């Protein structure tokens, strides 16, 4: 178990969360504004969130499970892979849980794969998200 300190400590089998929150219309509109998603469904008649917002559940989970922060090196996002089962509703209690499924080294860089399960608090599945990060851009130790 490598939770409790830095993100760079995370290892296969670690479970992050679950955490509970509610997606607000403010969050959807601001996130979409920041990403230039100006479609009506994201700015005016807001009933669901863009599925890409699941990526920020990773940061919510890190904050709880890795309270000391990122660690000695900056992470680099490598892959986003989300399967959307149903729209992410606004103003409905949600629950997100993360499981580290892989940690491996490739060309001197450490990769961590986390699967995030987002569902309503009542248990309806919404998104299954597989996130891959590189723990340090520099090979063999990043900024250390």
């Amino acid at each position, binding site marked *: 178990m490598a939770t409790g300190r830095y993100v760079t400590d995370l290892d296969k089998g670690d479970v992050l969360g679950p955490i509970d929150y509610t997606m607000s219309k403010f*969050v959807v509109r601001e996130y979409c504004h920041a*990403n230039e998603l100006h479609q009506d469904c994201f700015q005016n008649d807001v009933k669901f969130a*863009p599925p890409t917002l699941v990526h920020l559940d990773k940061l919510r989970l890190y904050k709880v499970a890795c309270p000391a922060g990122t660690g000695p090196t*900056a992470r680099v*996002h490598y892959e*986003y892979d989300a399967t*959307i089962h149903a729209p992410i509703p606004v103003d409905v209690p949600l629950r997100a849980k993360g499981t580290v499924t892989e940690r491996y080294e490739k060309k001197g860089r450490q990769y961590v794969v986390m699967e995030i399960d987002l569902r309503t608090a009542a248990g309806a599945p919404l998104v299954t998200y597989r996130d891959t990060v590189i723990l340090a*851009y520099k090979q063999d130790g990043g900024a250390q």
Partner: protein
Amino acid sequence: MSPGTEFRLAPRLMTRERMRWYVDIQETVQQDTGRIVTQPPTIHDDDAYAKKQGLPGIISDGMVSTNWILGLLVDVFGPDAATRGRLRTKYIAPIYEDQAVIACAKLASVTNDAGNAVYDLEVWCEDDKGKKLTVGDARVYAAAR
């Protein structure tokens, strides 16, 4: 709409502002106070910090590219593109300040699922010289077009 059909957004420059918008939205979303919340320096908005991490300068967060691809899919297929299906993106090259980025999609196949069409697409972002920066694929469930 048949296999081989290609869609693309107009080129956008990955400006410093666009990178910072994504940096600051992250804490804003998590705190959800109704105000913008800024972050400490990151590789996406602080040159000195990025260089310390081995980069030549700030680079875009990959999720900006992913969201631009999502926006293209919503433009083409409507809100259905954001409510069921799949999107996978891999960031194969860093995107630097003021680099041109074009979000693209190409229809690979159309099948039928209980009366709805299932669209499988190749998706990517490229620069103004055609170099791919982000690659991936998507599945969209929507009415037949």
